[in-house]
Each structure stands twice: as C-alpha cells, then as structure tokens.
C-alpha cells in the first residue's frame, strides 16, 4: 500500500460565520485520479484550495509528501504550487496577450527555464492534446475546448507531482468536455501524476479511479467493493 502523496486531516475552515469545511479528511495516493464531488456550496472547491496550499485551514492538517504544508508561510506555499503542483481551472486561465505555446510554456518560464527550451518543451504537448497547428494562436482565437486543452498542457508541462483541476470541463459542451477529460487523465496517468479533480458531473467523475463526496463540509468517501485492493 502506498503512502498518500497529499492528505487533508480533519480540516476546518470558515468564511465569516459560514463553515465551509467541518472536519474534512481525504487521502490521495501517488498516481491516483480522485474526483471530489458534491452539490454546489458543499465545500468541494474549498477542500481543493486547502489541499493545494491556496487556502490555509483554521484547524486540522494538510500534508504533502509527509510534510505539513498548512504551517508553511505563503512564500513557501507559493513556491510549492509553482514547482510541484499543476492547476487547471474552469474559466479565464490563459493569458490573452500570449500565444498558445507561450501560455503552455509559462510555468517553465516562471521556474527559470530558458525561453527557447521552454517553448520547445511546450510544443511537445500540442500533438498529444490534439492541438497541432494552434501553437501561434491567442486565446481569443481558440474554441472553448481548445483553450481548455491548452490549459491542461500548461498544467502538466512542468511535470507536477499533483495536478489540481477545478471543474475543468464546466464551460464546455458534453463532447468537448469528454475529450478534455480523456486527454487530461491519459496524459496524467502516463506521467504518473496524481490528480485531484473537483466536478459536479458524474460523467466527468467517471474518468477518475474513485470519488469522494463532500456534503456539508465533510467528506463521504464511500466506495463499492472493487474486489482486490
């Protein structure tokens, strides 16, 4: 049995008088693709933000590779997000002034990789995510599905250990969303990247290895028996 690569233990977080998380626990093993589901307002995105070190819980722990990240100062959590995590969100992720390949190369450039090398590495993802020929386009010249696949490439280009995806297909139609999920999960599995995916859509969650249901700020990780574990 592998150790969890990322884990929330009894995490609590309130926004003013509203308790978003009320003792949420979730452990994700290395290489797993886990879908975090739940009704809107259940706390699923807040849990993702805590796991990714974007938000700091009021109580409880968040561990990454056996180390508590909720105790780190923002500068170190920011470095962690840049160096070890990848992100795909629902909307407005691409920098409109940059071309698609510059957008994909961005995490590498921020990590100090030289421009030429970064762009070369970025281009390697275009064929894989069915984006051939779109390298020079700006985000306004891409369809929703294409832009989202560029965002997936950007999330994975730096070889993150964990990819956090928050409603990555939320703005797409059914077919476009399925294609994004297909490419996202197969690329992550090939690279051995752990994926924490927030979605309210069962068809999207079905691409994950298992699901965790968040309800009223608590995780219900019920699963049916899958035989050998």
């Amino acid at each position: 049995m592998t150790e969890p690569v990322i884990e929330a233990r009894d995490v609590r977080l309130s926004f003013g008088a509203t308790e978003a998380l009320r003792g949420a626990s979730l452990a994700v093993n290395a290489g797993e693709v886990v879908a975090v589901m739940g009704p809107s307002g259940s706390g699923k995105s807040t849990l993702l933000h805590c796991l990714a070190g974007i938000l700091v819980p009021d109580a409880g722990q968040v561990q990454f590779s056996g180390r508590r990240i909720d105790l780190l100062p923002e500068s170190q959590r920011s470095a962690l997000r840049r160096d070890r995590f990848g992100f795909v969100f629902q909307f407005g992720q691409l920098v409109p002034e940059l071309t698609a390949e510059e957008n994909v190369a961005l995490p590498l450039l921020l990590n100090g990789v030289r421009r030429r090398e970064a762009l070369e590495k970025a281009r390697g993802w275009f064929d894989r995510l069915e984006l051939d020929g779109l390298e020079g386009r700006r985000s306004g010249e891409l369809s929703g599905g294409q832009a989202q696949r560029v965002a997936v490439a950007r999330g994975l280009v730096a070889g993150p250990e964990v990819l956090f995806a928050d409603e990555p297909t939320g703005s797409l139609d059914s077919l476009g969303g399925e294609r994004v999920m297909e490419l996202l999960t197969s690329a992550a599995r090939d690279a051995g990247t752990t994926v924490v995916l927030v979605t309210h859509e069962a068809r999207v969650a079905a691409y994950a290895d298992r699901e965790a249901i968040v309800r009223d700020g608590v995780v219900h990780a019920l699963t049916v028996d899958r035989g050998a574990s």
Partner: protein
Amino acid sequence: MTLLGLLDRAPSHGYDLKRDYDAFFGRGKPLPFGQVYSTLARLARDGKVLAGEAEPGAGPDRKRYVITEQGATEVETWLTEPVEPEPHLQTTLFAKVVLSLMLDRPAEHYLDLQRAAHLQRMRELTEVRRTGNQVDALLADHGLFHLEADLRWIDLTSARLDNLAKAVRR
C-alpha cells in the same frame, strides 16, 4: 425486428444472421439458434421474409432468407419511429428509499452506496467507451446517460430526504 433489419442488408442464412446479431446486439447474451429459427418462421408466415429451398449439405440450416417488400417497408417505418419515452424509474431503487424512510432506516446511507455503485458502473462504461470500437462506445454512451439520470434522481432524493420522510411516515 432486429433480425428483419439485418435481412434488409442482404439475403442471409440463419447461422449468419445469428452471428451478426451476437456481434452487434448480443452483448454477451448470444441469441439461441432456436429463437432465430422460430423468429424466421414467424416472419415467413407473416409474409415479411421468404425462405428459399433447403440447400444440400450438412448442418441444420441450409435455407436462405430474403426480405419481402412488406418486410422492408416495416423496417423502414420502424427505423423512423421514436421509442416511447418512458421515465425508466428504477422501481427497486425507489421502493428501497421509500421503505427505508417508512421503517426509519438509514436511507441516506443506502443512497450513498447506490451512488457509489452507479459511479463504479459509469467508470466501467467509460473504459469501454475509451478502449472499445465505435459500436461499443455508442452502447456505453447510452448506458452512461441513463445512469447519469439515475444519479441526478439519487442526488435530488438525498437533498429532500427530510421532507420525503415526513411525507411517507404519516
């Protein structure tokens, strides 16, 4: 109707019809030979196919079947008729929820288990969709959409359990 539709492609022997049926529509449940021949006999009786003369050779099936004008028209009509849009409410699922509430059992837990089972099946179908041929994918899609509809019902029911409990416990 499916066998008649297969015959609309080209005249065929019973054995070939069964083989094609199993490949495209059987889904792990092969059609028994007996059913193929009884269906063909009925279609012949009703004037929808014509059975040729028995051909010499070994084996039970040496007849070639040809679709008639009447049969072809029926296939044509059938293919353009929408299937009755039934709600497909899973009665067992419904009964379990209502009985759980009536008997003060943990309906929410049951719904969580049902949701997990549905999602597991959806994962299996997603894999079929990903790795299978186009016909398999089409069938998997149909299953996925139906399971998704059930899941919506499960989620809605979960959210309304308190009110439902009041309604059924009177």
